[in-house]
């Protein structure tokens, strides 16, 4: 549930990011779910590897993409103004929303003014982020998700489990169950038949709906063009059939020129799903002109919702380069294990561990930056080379500073590290400590191994692993003999 407030940041109450341990364990313990994540991420990961292998100089393409994004984010004020001017020049209407509540209010207003009762929606992470469907339903407006994955998620009353593959966690048996229950469909597990069932349900709504709401993959400043990419054709339906089109766009989606788009189309398709290009690429520049197809009205809602806070932070700003391809999720060993829902909000995986605390405030998601072994596989695949591990480290220090976790032991963690640092700065204390520890472990160690350590945090180690006993002699003690040689 969203609780609207007057704060500049919307307060979301349906955020469970700090319960990641419990939710992640549930995925790991659920064999069916664990297998769905394992096989789907592996498939996407492999597709990406094959697709980038075909492009000579993919590295240079990544560098070029990063440079365009860096430049745009550094000059965002300029490009936002340019984009807005061009949208209006093309006959579109610009709206600016600083919070989720404002986004919803703007969309509800447009829908109500158009007297539409039904809205068709294309997959949009911003739409998920601001919980637009709930806001529309609260006003008696029916909103239907038209992306197959999102459609499934909506029927299930669920949240996307992945940035590009929202129903990645569901098997076709799960989907079949849902369709039987909600659409009174015949039972089938044949993918083509399941798709046909969804298509029939969607077709009806496409014809009725007065408003289509989409996100955008890119927004081109020099032309005021909204770019969407997809595989199902539903976005094109949402932007051409209804009388009104509303595009929700995070301010970080801008690119300066149409000429830059080629870089990103190649990066995004190949990084996300391993496609050379997605099936449909739409460039939407204003509403219909005389004698053309398209909506009568085109509205563009530029969304802040926490982004300018990251923009103001010279370190975290880099996070805004993200083009939401999902490659970092597919490669992440932690995401593969715990799945998307464990991240407790709409964005998951390594990028979700950055976006969520940034957009919602560190207190709401202070555990997420720690949900990483910092292996760096995400940075290795990121099409715009975001230094994700480094930003996670930065957020870890923010979390300890501004949202310390309630202590799990008698000795608070910060104090523990203070004492540790105090000892480590004094070699004689370090040496004394190693002596004491060797006496202490006599009680615990058997044949060189310790099975259970009662004290936190070592107790967390022995949950599933044995702990090696300290060597009888430290290296520094042995050096006394070695050194004289």
């Amino acid at each position, binding site marked *: 549930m969203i609780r609207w407030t007057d704060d500049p940041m919307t307060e979301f109450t349906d955020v469970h990011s700090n319960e990641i*341990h419990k939710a992640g364990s549930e995925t790991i313990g659920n064999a069916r779910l664990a297998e769905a994540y394992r096989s789907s991420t592996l498939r996407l990961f492999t597709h990406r590897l094959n697709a980038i292998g075909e492009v000579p100089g993919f590295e240079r393409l990544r560098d070029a993409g990063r440079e365009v994004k860096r430049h745009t984010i550094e000059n965002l004020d300029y490009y936002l103004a340019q984009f807005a001017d061009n949208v209006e020049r093309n006959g579109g209407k610009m709206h600016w929303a600083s919070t989720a509540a404002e986004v919803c209010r703007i969309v509800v207003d447009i829908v109500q003014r158009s007297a539409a009762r039904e809205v068709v929606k294309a997959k949009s992470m911003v739409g998920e982020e601001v919980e637009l469907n709930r806001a529309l339903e609260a006003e008696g407006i029916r909103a239907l998700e038209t992306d197959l994955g999102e459609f499934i998620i909506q029927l299930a009353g669920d949240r996307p489990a992945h940035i590009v593959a929202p129903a990645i966690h569901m098997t076709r048996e799960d989907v079949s169950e849902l369709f039987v229950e909600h659409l009174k469909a015949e039972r089938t597990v044949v993918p083509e038949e399941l798709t046909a069932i969804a298509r029939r349900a969607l077709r009806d709504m496409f014809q009725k709906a007065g408003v289509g709401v989409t996100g955008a993959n890119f927004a081109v400043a020099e032309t005021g063009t909204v770019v969407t990419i997809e595989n199902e054709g539903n976005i094109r339906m949402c932007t051409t059939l209804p009388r009104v089109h509303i595009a929700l766009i995070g301010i970080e989606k801008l690119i300066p020129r149409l000429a830059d788009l080629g870089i990103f189309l190649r990066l995004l398709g190949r990084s996300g799903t391993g496609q050379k290009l997605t099936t449909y690429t739409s460039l939407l520049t204003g509403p219909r002109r005389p004698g053309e197809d398209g909506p009568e009205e085109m509205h563009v809602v530029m969304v802040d919702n926490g982004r300018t806070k990251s923009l103001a932070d010279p370190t975290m700003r880099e996070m805004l380069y993200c083009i939401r391809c999902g490659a970092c999720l597919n490669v992440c060993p*932690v995401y593969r294990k715990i799945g998307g829902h464990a991240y407790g909000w709409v964005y998951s995986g390594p990028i979700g561990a950055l976006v969520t605390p940034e957009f919602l405030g560190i207190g709401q998601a202070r555990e997420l930056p720690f949900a990483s072994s910092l292996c760096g596989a995400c940075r290795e695949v990121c099409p715009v080379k975001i230094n994700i591990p480094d930003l996670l480290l930065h957020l870890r220090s923010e979390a300890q500073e501004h949202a310390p976790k309630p202590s799990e032991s008698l000795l608070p963690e910060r104090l523990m*590290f203070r004492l540790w640092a105090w000892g*480590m700065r004094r*070699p004689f204390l370090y040496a004394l400590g190693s002596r004491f520890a060797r006496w202490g472990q006599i009680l615990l160690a058997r044949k060189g191994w310790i099975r259970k350590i009662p004290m936190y945090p070592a107790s967390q180690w022995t949950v599933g692993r*044995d702990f*090696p006993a300290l060597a009888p002699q430290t290296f520094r003690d042995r050096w006394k003999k070695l050194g004289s040689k």
Partner: protein
Amino acid sequence: MAKPRVALFITCLADQFFPQVGESVVKILRRLDVEVTFNPEQTCCGQPAFNTGYRDEARSVARKVLDLFDDADYVVAPSGSCTAMVRVFYPELFQDAPALLRKSQDLQKRFFEFSEFLVKVLKVEDLGARFAHRVTYHDSCHLLRELGVDEAPRQLLRKVQGIDLVEMQDYKLCCGFGGTFSVKFPEVSVPMGQDKIRAATETGAEYLVAADGGCLMHLAGLIHRQGLGLKTIHLAEILAAQEK
């Protein structure tokens, strides 16, 4: 040319748990006619605090490290992770303190992980070691992705007599140690390590070899808990081996 003076940064983990790794490093370097020194003032590089988000505490420990090796031509550590801390993260920690930043940048140039030091600096691969076993090499993440070292350990291993070096499935995949991640997220860290051990076991290898004490401690602990036969060993120990 005078003998290069190499200071050993043993790392707190090897000092406490794997002193034989340090002895192996010393043995190998001396065989290569290098003068090895050890400054007993050293303790830890500060990474546990940095990794957990306690930057002031990490800085206070790191500051001490900056002063330990002024007279050494090179500093060598048998750990990719601690080397990454010094080379990659020290300059970040001291970015607002010009004098310390300069010191860290000077140390950065002289600080090497053991396998990369042998291959890139000393330009040796064949150390005359003999180790007649099937082994599989685990890329520790900091060595692989922060320092970009993937070939050096393999080049060294391939030159070991009698060795049968095999690659495991997904050899670049993290083992799940991750420093304090191992105790903050044991529910994820443990199954990640189990995957790694399964992949290593499937190769038929007798030894799982790595160049980082953290990964080895985590993997060995899992293997011991499960009562498996796979053995773990540090790269330096194989390179120092002279078995018949």
